[in-house]
């Protein structure tokens, strides 16, 4: 299904941005090998659709703008792709991307809320959903129409605190809360299914009272349409978008490696990837 608001031009723009973010994420990794590159390549299309597709209210000149939608990146270390997006949108200078993980840069290997555009402490997994629940309740009490988005990884769903939050959101019918699952099906030490099989996700969320949508997380029209539906008014239920993604998307050596989470790419491989026509283009 293609969303009526996603014109061909917009689709092309989002694809172009996603490709650019992919390239910049690899460039950051080339300069800063401490970054987690594989898990930062899987959520790119979701984040690009939110930020460039008109689905998220934000103001780079005023990151704490009261009328913004809140976005929590709970899988913090897997979001280095946020750095080029935030720089491109004007949250900070593009030149900061040169200094990721360097002495006194505010852009670390795991993002912290000292970065304009980040709401909370991220990377210690399992905290985002509960904090997002608190924000969603608060926005309702403040009569705000803004949404709260929270991105988690499928491996992060092993954390018990996530399910406390999922239960809470369902019980309180937080229809202003959208959880984005970057379901790349790999944890740090291999395939999620083999380590702790949390799948299938849909019936679990449905049992807790959530409205569930599943898409190919790299298919921009599908991601856009699902996000637009999540953000639209509808039943009094929290929404979850389960995006089936590929960890290390566009990098063959990462895509086929179950241990790609902890892999660092060499300079030559990155140069060939960026220059050699490889990449996530659909």
């Amino acid at each position: 299904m293609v969303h009526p608001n996603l014109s061909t031009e917009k689709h092309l723009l989002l694809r172009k941005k996603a490709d650019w973010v992919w390239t910049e994420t690899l460039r950051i990794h080339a300069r800063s090998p401490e970054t987690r590159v594989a898990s930062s390549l899987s959520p790119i299309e979701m984040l690009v659709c939110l930020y460039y597709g008109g689905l998220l209210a934000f103001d780079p000149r005023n990151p704490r703008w009261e009328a913004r939608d809140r976005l929590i990146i709970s899988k913090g270390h897997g979001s280095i792709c946020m750095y080029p997006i935030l720089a491109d949108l004007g949250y900070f200078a593009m030149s900061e991307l040169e200094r990721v993980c360097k002495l006194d840069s505010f852009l670390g290997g795991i993002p912290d809320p000292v970065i304009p555009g980040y709401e909370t402490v991220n990377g210690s997994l399992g905290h985002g959903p509960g904090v997002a629940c608190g924000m969603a309740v608060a926005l309702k009490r403040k009569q705000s129409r803004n949404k709260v988005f929270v991105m988690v990884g499928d491996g992060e769903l092993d954390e018990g605190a996530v399910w406390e939050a999922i239960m809470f959101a369902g019980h309180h019918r937080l229809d202003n809360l959208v959880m984005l699952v970057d379901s790349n099906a790999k944890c740090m030490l291999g395939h999620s299914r083999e380590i702790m099989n949390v799948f299938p996700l849909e019936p679990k969320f449905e049992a807790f009272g959530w409205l569930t949508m599943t898409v190919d997380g790299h298919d921009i029209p599908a991601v856009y349409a699902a996000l637009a539906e999540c953000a639209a008014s509808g039943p009094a239920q929290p929404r979850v978008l389960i995006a089936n993604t590929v960890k290390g998307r566009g990098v063959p050596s990462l895509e086929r490696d179950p241990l790609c989470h902890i892999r660092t790419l060499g300079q030559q491989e990155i140069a060939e990837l960026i220059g050699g026509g490889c990449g996530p283009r659909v």
Partner: protein
Amino acid sequence: MAPASSRMRDVFLASVLARMKTDRRLFFLSADFGSPVLDVVARDYPDRFINVGIAEQNLINVATGLALEGFVVVAYAIAPFLSMRCYEQIRVNLGILSQVRPLNVNMVGVGAGLSYDVSGPTHQALEDLSIMRTLPNVEVLSPADGASAGAIAEYCLEHSGPKYVRLDGKPLASLYETGAAVNVEMGFHEWRRGTDVCLVATGYMVHTALKAAQILEAENLSVGVVDMFALSKYKASELSDVLGHYQTVITIEEGFVGKGGLDACLNEALGARGGQRVHALGLPSRYSFRVGDRDEMLRDSGLGEVSIAAKARECLRR
């Protein structure tokens, strides 16, 4: 005029209830833990009260989200569960985050020390003061009676930042005439001034320290007593002035001794002074499965007034 005795939780929550009438920013979260006053909060302010269920991790995370949006939050639960089940949530979302984003979350734990005596070690809070003191940016408050709990409630609602408030599980005799007598920002209260030895206590042990001082006074020993109700943020130089002339200071806490609680707090405060002895009294580093009376269990561990007086005499003989 204070009643003869009161429950800290009732006084604390009455302050919160009164404030909820006028302050729309105040939000109350409970982890399925109640009180008669809380029933009124839930009835009168259903839009600003949520029982999150038996889920302390989510309690802290939801509190964080509300606080980031400008609400002043009280997060209420049984002390050991509030301080230990969700310790990493407290560290990440309150300790770390509050350093860069202002938030006012007040963790109110009931069941200080051995106050849930017959419930056994799961329900007793003997580590909470130590582990909460370890966290930067988190204030630790430990009142000794209802009036001081009420004063601490007012302070918490007025002052931003994460705080851990340790309330007793049992009704306690009143010490302070009113909450106005409690200077929370000072962090301590000097109950008696002496010359020979000073007993510095927190929570329920302040009551025992005052009884021990009476025993010693009858023996013509001059004993000071200080109630240390703030264990992380207090006026260190004023405390140092109050304690400076004593050769011997004895700390008394209803928690594991030598683990970073009140004793460590006093060592920090007095560390710069040479020649002053700090003796630490508290519970030994083991869990007790003994079922029974709190005072009996405290006496067993040398924390009755008679043992404390004996310890003071011993220190003075040295």
